[in-house]
């Protein structure tokens, strides 16, 4: 699981039976107390269909419960979508229209150490500036091959009284990252990678990017994150990134097709879904149709070669964002 915090946004990505949405009220309270934010510019909540929905609790027991929970916070500003085949790898999305006014429960209470910040006046509601561009790719992979799963099991400690100590989680994570080339998905010099190998298995990594590449005019900033559950029967790996990518690969950064192929090559899934979320300029703005075209064509039938068949490609146009969703399955 991972948490990313930027000056203006927070991303919380949690697996297992975590109670992700129950953190939302507190996040809004903290943002108000420390930064004076009284509105949420936008909220996105998404997930793939669960393998074991019966193990979830709280609002996560059912998609309808999650939507009801989010509606209780955002009222009429939210919309819920089901994307993809309902009997296979569908994907669920809830998003709000800009500048939603969150409705905090009446008994919401703040810790006493927030009191100093509470005197901050609120920033005004904001419109989307025409220059702003945001792009996030998420690759959700399942049915990993035995070779794809094997690196994510911690080695057994050597037997005998002279056995040396086992690796720490961070040491094991770094070892896995290096062996599989995760530490070179982007230029090593501009990326700070933090990875962890779990006992007896599993892996998580966060990476943050520094200053960008002046030679190619590609901006800096952004993150990528990876989480892996390698057990046979419910193997799963996810990759997500909002790092700006060039149109063609450079020494520092891959283009989007190269990045997807590298990631799929590491985890070797039999099934995967890819979502590409791209902000679009205001209607009629420069680059509107270009942004749509690039997002759509990025997930073409030949993206992963003849080894994979693309089963679906679905496009959505939201207010300010285009979403392209595609499913691939290994042939045979």
């Amino acid at each position: 699981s991972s948490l990313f915090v930027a000056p203006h946004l927070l991303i919380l990505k949690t697996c297992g039976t975590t109670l992700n949405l129950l953190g939302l009220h507190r996040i809004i309270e903290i943002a108000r107390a420390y930064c004076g934010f009284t509105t949420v510019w936008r909220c996105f909540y998404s997930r793939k269909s669960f393998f074991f929905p019966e193990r979830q609790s709280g609002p996560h027991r059912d998609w309808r419960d999650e939507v009801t929970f989010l509606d209780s916070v955002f009222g009429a500003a939210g919309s819920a979508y089901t994307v993809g085949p309902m009997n296979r790898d569908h994907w669920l999305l809830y998003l709000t229209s800009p500048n939603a006014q969150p409705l905090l429960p009446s008994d919401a209470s703040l810790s006493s150490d927030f009191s100093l910040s509470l005197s901050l006046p609120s920033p005004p509601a904001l419109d989307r500036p025409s220059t702003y561009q945001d792009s996030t790719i998420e690759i959700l992979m399942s049915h990993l091959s035995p070779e794809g799963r094997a690196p994510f099991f911690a080695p057994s400690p050597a037997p005998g009284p002279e056995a040396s100590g086992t690796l720490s989680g961070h040491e094991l994570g770094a070892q896995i990252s290096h062996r599989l080339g995760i530490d070179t998905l982007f230029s090593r010099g501009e990326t700070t990678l933090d990875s962890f190998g779990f006992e007896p298995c599993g892996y998580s990594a966060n990476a943050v990017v520094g200053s960008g590449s002046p030679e190619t005019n590609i901006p800096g900033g952004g993150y990528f994150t990876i989480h892996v559950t390698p057990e046979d029967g419910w193997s799963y790996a996810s990759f997500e990134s909002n790092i700006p990518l060039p149109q063609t690969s450079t020494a520092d950064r891959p283009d989007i097709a190269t990045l997807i192929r590298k990631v799929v090559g590491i985890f070797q899934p039999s099934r995967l879904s890819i979502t590409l979320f791209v902000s679009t300029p205001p209607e009629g703005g420069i680059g509107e149709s270009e942004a749509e075209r690039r997002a759509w064509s990025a997930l073409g039938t030949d993206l992963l070669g003849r080894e994979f068949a693309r089963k679906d490609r679905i496009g959505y146009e939201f207010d300010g964002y285009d979403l392209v969703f595609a499913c691939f399955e290994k042939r045979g």
Partner: protein
Amino acid sequence: LSSPGPFEGPEKLLEVWFAPSASALPETSAAGAARYRPAAVQREWKGLRRVPRAVWEEMLDIVKCKVLSVVEGAEVDAYLLSE
């Protein structure tokens, strides 16, 4: 990351945006700083990044996650979590 029995890999992903970009925050301009920041607080505006780790940990307790480690990037702080 493991637990007794099958483990649910697919994640729940929550993104809460309080402004369209960091540069869109009025506090980043000099005029904004004068309007929205108390005079006594003249440090660089970091928005949510100024929230102490302990405060996020309290929120994460509700979610049932623990912080394993943190790295800071140019624009974002990344917390690696248990579970």
